[in-house]
């Protein structure tokens, strides 16, 4: 449980951090909260020669409203998400889901950006970001660009982020009226990754679903958006039977890996069950 030696850098600005990434390329890794990277280093699964700690970059922290959008700095901690009055009012899904991540110590260090950019399908924010239609700002040596969460995840630990880029900001629209959101996460214990989890964001007009986003955590090589389940619901008067159909679509799309949390059959069924529960709760909340 002792990592090999590495060089430690602590830049004070995004530009300096990008410069270090440009200089060291694949030999460098960004250190955010460190709750994924440091265990991997201690197990010598990851052996970066250069560790670029971006915790000193103040501009990467904070939650604000800008031009009708919510903007979250990538180095904002899970604890900050949970305690944000702005999020509680305008995007209650995020504080609720962040409270299901890790444990208090992890949430005090762990950041939304680290969770998003690591590309681990077991992380919770990827599915949440996809359900919120979030847009990521990536800054590299040639300036910044924007990538939608739904286009960001390319494979396990493989994202649209280039080796010399930093995820700086996350933007999404506040929850619209008549909309409810929910994240149901099945886990073995505090601090564990999801055995299966589902996020649902659903806009209702009376008993009819107007819009739906349904996404899954830890049930495939990346977080998954279940468009087929959304299609089952949108434009329909919601019944238990329809919700079961949507849950079945989630089971159809998911491609989990057997581990000590459960085998493929169990995880597939839990994908359905979590989807069912997330949709039901989201609809209840949408109806107020």
């Amino acid at each position: 449980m002792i990592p090999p030696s590495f060089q430690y850098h602590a830049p004070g600005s995004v530009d300096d951090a990008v410069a270090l990434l440009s200089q060291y390329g694949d030999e460098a890794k960004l250190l955010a909260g460190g709750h994924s990277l440091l265990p991997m280093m201690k197990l010598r699964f990851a052996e970066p020669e250069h560790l670029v700690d971006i915790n000193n970059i103040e501009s990467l922290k904070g939650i604000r409203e800008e031009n009708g959008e919510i903007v979250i700095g990538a180095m904002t901690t899970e604890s900050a998400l949970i305690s944000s009055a702005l999020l509680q009012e305008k995007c209650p899904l995020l504080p609720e889901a962040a409270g299901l991540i890790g444990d208090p110590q992890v949430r005090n260090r762990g950041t939304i950006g680290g969770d998003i950019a690591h590309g681990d399908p077991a992380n919770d924010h990827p599915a949440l970001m996809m359900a919120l239609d979030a847009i990521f700002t990536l800054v590299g040596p040639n300036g910044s660009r924007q990538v939608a969460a739904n286009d960001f995840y390319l494979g396990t630990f493989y994202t649209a982020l280039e080796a010399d880029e930093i995820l700086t900001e996350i933007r999404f629209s506040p929850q619209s009226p008549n909309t409810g959101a929910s994240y149901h996460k099945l886990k073995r214990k505090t601090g564990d990754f999801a055995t299966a989890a589902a996020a649902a964001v659903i806009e209702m007009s009376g008993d009819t679903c107007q819009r739906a986003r349904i996404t899954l955590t830890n049930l495939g090589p990346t977080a998954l958006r279940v468009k087929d389940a959304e299609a089952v619901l949108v434009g329909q008067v919601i019944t238990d039977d329809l919700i079961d159909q949507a849950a079945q679509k989630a089971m159809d799309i998911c491609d989990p890996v057997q581990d000590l949390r459960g085998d493929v059959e169990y995880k597939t069924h839990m994908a359905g069950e979590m989807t069912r529960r997330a949709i039901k709760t989201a609809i209840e909340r949408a109806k107020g």
Partner: protein
Amino acid sequence: MAATAESLERKEKLQGIGCSRKRKEDPRFIQGKGIYVDDVKLPGMVYGALVRSPHAHARIKSINKEKALALPGVITVLTADDLKPLNLHWMPTLGSDVQAVLADEKVGFQLQEVAMVIAEERYIAADGVDLVEVEYEELPAITDPHKSMDPDAPIIREDLVGKDEVGHGKRLHDNHIFTWEAGDKDSTDAVFDKAEVTIKEEILNPRVHPCPIETCGCVASFDKINGHLTVHMTTQNSHLVRTVLAMLSGIPESKIRVITNDIGGGFGNKVPIYPGYVVAIVASIVLGRPVKWIESRIENLSTTGFARDYHGTAELAADKEGHIQALRFNVLADHGAFNAHVSATKWPAGLFSICTGSYDIPTAYVKVDAVFTNKAPGGVAYRCSLRVTEAVYLIERMIDILAQKLNIDKAEIRRRNFIQADQFPYNTSLGWTLDSGNYGPALDKVLKAVDYEGLRKEQAEKRAKGELMGIGISTFTEIVGAGPTKACDILGIGLFDSCEIRVNPTGSAIARMGTQSQGQGHETTYAQIIATELGIPSDEIQVEEGDTDKAPYGAGTWGSRTTPVGAAAVTKAARKIRDKARKIAAHLLEVSEDDLEWDVDQFRVKGVPDQVKTMKEIAMAAYSNVPEGMENGLEAVDYYDPPNFTFPFGAYVCVIDIDPQTGEIKVRRFYALDDCGTRINDMIIEGQIHGGLTEAFAVSMGQLIDFDEEGNLLGNSLMDYFVPTAVETPHWETDYTVTPSPHHPLGAKGVAESPHVGGIPCFSNAVIDALSHLGVTHVDMPHTAARIWKKLHELGVAK
């Protein structure tokens, strides 16, 4: 004479037996000021790190140290070949076997110790480990003990080929270790043949690990000038370790000192001697420098003493009213690659024959066959006495299954089979003499407290709605306090324990014991006993353990033996001092000893209330004014050899709800009544019950050391291995009755392991009770959501 208000006030000030005195240890623990082995730093200290095998079964073709030795800061790399000249490449185990200290030509389990890199810094040692090149030739591995004795099974222990026995009778196969039996086979078979009702179930106590928060480690320091070896280490039994080290090394025992400071939990895991200790000691002897070796979590979970792995086939014979007539338990025990299980010499299956439990079972037979597999060695008593959890689990599960078969209520069937209070002392059909017990009233108290009838009514209503609710009962009897030296020894040394007390001239005292706290609070409770026995305030009594140069010899703390054995030695040593104090008081008061009576903290002349000598006055007199012919001083030593074990018991009820769609179990209520005889400190007892129940919950609901077919351990970190946090841990309700042990000087029985032993079957009984109306009689632990869901899915309950 009735106690006066004045004497009651003096008694309260002592903080003696019965007082919920705050733990003396806590200020240092809470402030992070405990001293654990990894806090020990000695001048010139170097660090060892182990090279371990990635394979479970392989021949070692070569070991190349060159690259590691070339790394600046690496001092040496030790392998079996380096230990051979000292004859330390193998060491004896507590199971009458030998274990490779560093792998000698082959490895038998994954992460087995192959070499140790010694370096100036810990980080360099870790880098050095990566540079040692070991070439392996993989061999087929056995992970299922049921396949160990197949005719074509690969031989795990080639070093034992041709040996007919490993300490405990004839071996039947190269992978067989021993067969152990108790009871009367023929008469048991005869009862089964004629019985009205028989039941049979395969019941597994799966392989788990005690997982103390502090891993194992040591700092070995050999002084080349005077030939002294000092070892700071995490052990539950420092004196036995010293003896073993003397036997192994040839260093006179008087020149070996084992020091144990604070320990971050033991739970049986810190009883054995592990290879890392031995290599660190050898390295220190060779280098003449202190060597520190500390395990990582993965090393601790993967290689040090596991517990259980008992594969049982349990049978009961009964009449139609549910009266048990005979018990027949057969066990296949998986001991891993070396027979390093922890037990007393004469008890290769520990105290497993306590498996008749709290019940009057006239005929019984048990047989345990132990085999080798390609898994880590061990078989420690994880928060229980030797193999007692395994035994109690089987009987407490089986009596439920019998109730289910006969459609008798699960509380009622226990009442019908309880040993009655007037039957004690009770000789069990497997040879134990239960000293005391009062089981019926304990169960009744618990059933009333939880409104058992109301719970059963609620369960019936829920079942009608398709909901899953379970009520578990456990009415267990433990056997603890190993033990009478005529029956129990380890490496030939009897399992007595000891205490030495010295009272200073000004009336304070210091006491030293052969036991070893790992967090149990000995400094607090031992002082309370002495306070009551000698009238010295607890706060003025210094309690010390864990330094073999200071404390008298004892077998340490495990198997709940501290109170049954250690506390008895404390009591008897204190009483020796009080006897001498009485003589001094008689001398000072110029009366006969018979004219004196003891009153809290003083002797007084009967009928003359103002004629008193306090313990403080007597202490000073012991150093200045003793009767003619008496030696000065006020101290005593006692080595206590218990006449019998003690038999704490309890009645537990657990209520659970199962989410039928996810398989998740929610513990709604857990009510634990324990009878540990005389209670020394209620608060500490309650803390022990909470801890034991939490570990029972962990074992029952999630802990598992599992392997794939190649012998790779699945899940060797706390990400997977279940150690519950406060969030998962249920709320505990505790209660008690008091049935003193008739043979213990205080009537105390030991308590810390009861909740683990009794709790595990209670959880399982609740889970299976929730499924019993669906025809389920048993499911093996751990009751994880995934496993329960699988069962529910098979039954058509889960979608």
